[in-house]
């Protein structure tokens, strides 16, 4: 069989196997990125809390911030593959039961991504003008209302390119979860490769599958970016002489 015949053979006989891996890979990357982003935003909101007048609350905040710092440093500073091993076997040792592998996978990707997202969100919050906070505080919004209604929506727009980066990284890096038997694409590729003994052909197919996934995701997120940017034009309703008039203003960009 020629190279292309072998590719066709693997594709014909194992595409269902590989696609089941694709499903899990996307699930892990998507849920992991979303949860990671939520973790990042929550940490960002807590870290920007105004200094309390209460001594005990101030002490508590210092402890919480220290915990965040340790979390971020540990999970950014160790490989996800190692984290997967430690968490998966650690959980089994401590509780005596195995965590289901997909659950383990989602937890690991989420907290790993959360550590990066916390820093991305922090950068996003720093980049927002202080006046936006003051404007919100001046009309009586509390910290949570300010963050959720005014700051985070603007942060989201600014950090979307970095979030999309994380998403792409997660699609690829979930492949390390094969060490704890998560049946994602790479795990399935191993099965196909060892079954057929067509190692090169299998991984050429798999690399194309990864590429299609990552390319699709970046395009989709570009679209979201454009949607979040809002409309460039607006309507002026009414005028001095004619209250029913509508003037459509288009911005040149």
């Amino acid at each position, binding site marked *: 069989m020629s190279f292309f015949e072998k590719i066709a053979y693997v594709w014909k006989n194992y595409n269902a196997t590989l696609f089941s891996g694709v499903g899990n890979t996307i699930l892990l990357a998507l849920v992991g990125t979303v949860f990671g982003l939520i973790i990042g935003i929550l940490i960002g909101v807590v870290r920007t809390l105004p200094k309390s007048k209460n001594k005990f609350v101030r002490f508590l905040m210092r402890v919480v911030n220290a915990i965040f710092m340790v979390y971020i440093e540990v999970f950014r500073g160790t490989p996800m593959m190692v984290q997967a091993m430690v968490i998966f076997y650690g959980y089994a040792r401590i509780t005596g039961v195995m965590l289901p592998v997909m659950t383990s996978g989602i937890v690991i990707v989420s907290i790993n991504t959360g550590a990066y997202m916390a820093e991305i969100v922090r950068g996003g919050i720093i980049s927002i003008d202080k006046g936006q906070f003051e404007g919100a505080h*001046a009309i009586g919004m*509390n910290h949570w209302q300010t963050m959720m*209604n005014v700051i985070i929506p603007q942060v989201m*727009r600014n950090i979307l390119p970095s979030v999309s980066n994380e998403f792409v990284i997660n699609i690829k890096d979930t492949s390390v979860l094969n060490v704890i038997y998560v049946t994602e694409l790479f795990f399935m590729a191993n099965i196909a490769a060892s079954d057929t003994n067509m190692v090169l052909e299998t991984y050429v197919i798999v690399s194309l599958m990864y590429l299609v996934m990552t390319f699709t995701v970046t395009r989709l997120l570009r679209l979201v970016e454009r949607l979040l940017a809002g409309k460039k034009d607006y309507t002026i309703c009414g005028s001095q002489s004619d209250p029913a008039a509508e003037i459509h203003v288009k911005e040149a960009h």
Partner: protein
Amino acid sequence: MADNIFTVNDLVKNFGNHAVLKGINLSVNKGEVVSIIGASGSGKSTLLRCLNLLEQPTSGTIEFEGENILGNKFNAIKYRAKVGMVFQSFNLFNNMNVLKNCVIGQVKVLKRSKAEAEEVAMKYLSNVGMSAYINARPSQLSGGQKQRVAIARALSMNPDVLLFDEPTSALDPEMVGEVLSVMSDLSKTGLTMITVTHEMQFAREVSSRVLFMDDGVIAEDSSPEQIFTNPKEERTRAFLNRIINKR
């Protein structure tokens, strides 16, 4: 006193070792239109920011409608809804259109219904001549338009007093007039206003009382006629001469 809005006693604010406010005593009654003038760095804006607790004073007391606002149990967040603030840099929410800017605080803080909040917002937006622009985003407006929306946003909260922190200083000269005329209209409605300004004509013609601040204290506190025609203090005279000769 029933119609007292602010009573400030011996207010001090330090930034590190630098004393910006060195003992401010001030009493403002309902319906007064107060202008605060003085050189840059004299503490005008800091005083205003202490009044709505955007800055925490170092010492002294501030009473708002008879209540101590610097107490530990005082709810500063709710309090700010009663004290409107208009900033030099507008600080409109960039992620919302004009109408939403004026609605969000009413809905989230005052718990008004969306319909009621929109009605209130429309009323004040038309007062400042911006009701046609409800769909525009802040980035699509000129400075003067932004500031008029910011005034409508503050008014939509139905505050007991409105603070203006150099509301025209960031504007192009041809836009200063439109904002000042809105403020002048407002001053006739009985709203209590405290304005930090470099617009001497506004201070003179619109306000009922002028404070001259110098080096962290209120150096002179009197009627506009008095301060602009016959100031008691030599430093007030020197400041006004500097400002007027620049023109």
